[in-house]
């Protein structure tokens, strides 16, 4: 017969802080907290002392002062009379531009290469292996420099396009010119613009912006209509699916209805605004009109896409291989076609494996775009973290803002993707 008694209440002893597991974790945390705070205090204190020694203060006022340097590739209006703050925004937009373009092309390349690497075709499979291993095992910086060198050294000069028998011709029906100064592509111009035609907005003797000042209102309208179309299309898709599940009959022409809801209003807006293509033309020693994509942008974009594409190919391959063969066989036993098997059985399961590493590849691509420094593309690091710092001597503030920008971008991308990821995640009990 056992009698349960409470252990005798003991007075709290100091040694319990170390030897009693109930208190030890608190002790460790308090000690760690004190150490970390002391370390931080030491760093901040040093920074304050050093700033005092150098006669500097900690002030973000430099963002409002005149920048005084030019940026050759920009999405918004900017002259050397603009402020450092605006230069930073131009740089940030440039970073986001190349990251956005890169993510799209890298996904495209990666999915194709990943699927082709699994192909039964021996030559194609080996070719994709060479691509993937080649790009994964050689530094990105080298690829950026190589592609930049190809663009500047091996492409024809604009003067090669001159004369009756030119040594170089424009491609895609005389609309795109690939030169050693960059790639010229047609630009969309609105002849009946809402806010007046801003094509000729040249200021202070600076030639019209390389990417011409766009009429923001027109593009905003077009984009709004396009987004509304996409929303409508999704709604129609839901309606069609609901009807199919209710009645067992899929509404006829659902795909065309969905496409029309997006395309027809957008086309109407374009026609109403008088959209025409402004082709690049040879004028004197250079091309005029259209949009010039500088070599720096092209090299950075291609290199980032090819490099990240190789990593995405491996992710896609692993994702598809992770779906067990039984799934394919079961869907074949149900009498599904190969395309249905892929779309309805394999891909939805593979995506769960593919999405999380894909997100981190997108993040890597965005961060790697800071290698723009190698080819002189004016991204956030070159404007805010480069020329602005050199001109104002505000290293601490500039690097802090730059770090915060990259950190915020990373957190936002991973946040958005995590929401998507949790929506496709396997629902487990």
């Amino acid at each position: 017969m056992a009698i349960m008694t409470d252990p005798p209440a003991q007075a709290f002893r100091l040694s319990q802080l170390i030897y009693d597991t109930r208190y030890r974790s608190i002790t460790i945390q308090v000690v760690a907290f004190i150490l970390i705070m002391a370390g931080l205090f030491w760093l901040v204190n040093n920074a304050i002392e050093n700033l005092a020694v150098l006669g500097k203060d900690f002030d973000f006022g430099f963002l409002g002062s005149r920048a005084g340097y030019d940026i050759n590739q920009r999405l918004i209006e900017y002259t050397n009379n603009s402020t450092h703050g605006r230069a930073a925004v131009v740089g940030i937009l440039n970073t986001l531009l190349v990251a956005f373009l890169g993510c799209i092309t890298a996904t495209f390349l990666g999915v194709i290469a990943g699927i082709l690497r699994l192909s039964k075709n021996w030559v194609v499979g080996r070719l994709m292996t060479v691509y993937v291993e080649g790009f994964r095992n050689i530094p990105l910086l080298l690829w950026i420099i190589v592609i930049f060198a190809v663009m500047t050294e091996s492409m024809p000069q604009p003067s090669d396009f001159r004369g009756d028998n030119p040594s170089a011709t424009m491609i895609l029906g005389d609309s795109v010119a690939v030169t050693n100064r960059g790639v010229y592509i047609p630009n969309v111009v609105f002849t009946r613009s809402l806010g007046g035609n801003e094509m000729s907005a040249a200021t202070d003797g600076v030639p019209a912006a390389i990417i011409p000042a766009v009429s923001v209102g027109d593009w905003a309208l077009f984009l709004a209509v396009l987004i509304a179309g996409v929303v409508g299309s999704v709604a129609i898709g839901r309606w069609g699916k609901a009807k199919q599940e209710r009645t067992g009959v899929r509404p006829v022409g659902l795909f065309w209805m969905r496409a029309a809801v997006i395309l027809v209003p957008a086309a109407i807006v374009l026609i109403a605004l008088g959209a025409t293509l402004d082709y690049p033309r040879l004028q004197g020693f250079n091309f005029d009109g259209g949009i010039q994509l500088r070599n720096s942008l092209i090299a950075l974009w291609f290199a980032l896409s090819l490099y990240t594409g190789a990593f995405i190919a491996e992710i896609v391959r692993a994702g598809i291989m992770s779906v067990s063969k039984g799934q394919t066989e079961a869907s074949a036993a149900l009498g599904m076609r190969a395309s249905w098997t892929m779309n309805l059985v394999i891909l939805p399961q593979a995506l769960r494996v593919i999405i999380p590493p894909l997100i981190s590849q997108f993040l890597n691509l965005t961060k790697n775009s800071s290698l723009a420094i190698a080819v002189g593309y004016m991204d956030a690091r070159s404007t805010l973290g480069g020329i602005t710092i050199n001109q104002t001597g505000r290293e601490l503030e500039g690097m802090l803002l730059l770090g915060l920008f990259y950190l915020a971008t990373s957190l936002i991308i991973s946040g958005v993707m995590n929401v998507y990821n949790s929506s496709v995640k396997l629902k487990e009990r």
Partner: protein
Amino acid sequence: MSEIHSETALQTAYVRREMLDQQTPPVTAAGPVKWMRENLFSSIPNGIMTVLSLFVIYYILSHLLGWFANGIWDAGSLTECRAIRDERIASGVWSEGTEVACWGVLADRWDQLLFGFYPSDLYWRPILAVVLFLAAMAPILYDSLPRKLLILTLVAPFLCFWLLWGGSIWYPYMVAMGFLLGWAIIKFASVPLGSLVANLAAIVLPLLFWLFAAGPLASALTDIAPIGIRSVNSREFGGFLLAVVIGASGIILSMPLGIALALGRQSDLFIINKCSVIFIEVIRGVPLIVWLFTAQLLLGYFLPPGTNFDLMLRVIIMVTLFSSAYIAEVIRGGLAALPRGQYEGADSLGLNYWQAMQLIILPQALKISIPGIVSSFIGLFKDTTLVVFIGMLDPIGFSNAIRADTDWNGIYWELFIFIGLCFFICCFSMSRYSQYLERKLATDHR
């Protein structure tokens, strides 16, 4: 019954009594033809893809092979290269308009590409250091080698440091003594003092030793017994030597830090957990290049006024911190992948936290994380090229410097191919090794 059956069969005229010889399979169902039908031309789209791929391969090779193989090795400048080429074209050896590689640049600048400005009479030192490093890695990489070699592994980092930077041997010796002190405390003081006190002492005493005793002791010993070799400044490091030194130190140092951070992130202790999370996310959220600029421009702000230390050391510290955050995430994945039963099993055996981690959790978690860890290492080694932006002359920095010379102005592809090939060999062999290790350690699902 069967006999009767066979007897009737033998009497029946239409039953064959002798076997035909085995026929060879049709040409289309055996050998290379079958292989090609199955692997290259199984369907019309497949056939088109094969032909297209073969055409692409032919196109690339036909342009590159001649350029590659006919390359000129014995030339001291690009103009000399072109002169030799024109001469051979004029004499009819090569056809008009042939372009050839000018490998002379590699022969001319071989030393610089490999060693940078390291004093040329001391090249044996980095070579010996690399050999030593490889010998020290061998017992870790292949466990069939005798375990005694691990002693070399423990000594090698200090010897390599001494060989590369030179100077008095007593400084690396004193650093090693600090580690020995820590080990001795844990080994001999755990029982009399209790493990917690011994662990604390093993951390605090070596730190005090390094801060206050190591420097004076080493100087004193240098005065008594001046054993040393010529010291080499970090600024003189360059080329692949720089990439390998930064990469190898980053890899070795980031591993323990990464494990600590991963354990911190998995920890139940609120403050330690949150600090690890913040550290990892901040480091991972910002590109390495920004961290390198931080090391170059800002580190001075956060140290006591007047402190100034070597740029290369700063870079190694930054690269280590950067890489450890990535490795921590990889190892966290491995820790999370372990079934809960492993943790509970360790608890039920009465193991404490460190024993459980050391004996049960980490060996399994690290095994799962090997592919990820190695790919982090490969990434780190490739990222060493970024030091070119803070003014260090790694191979890519040297390729720019060589092009700035009038002799080699305009040479691109030969240098790029050489650098790319060297990186490819290093990284590809690392990834192959990780695959070998994965296969070897795959003890489950047999």
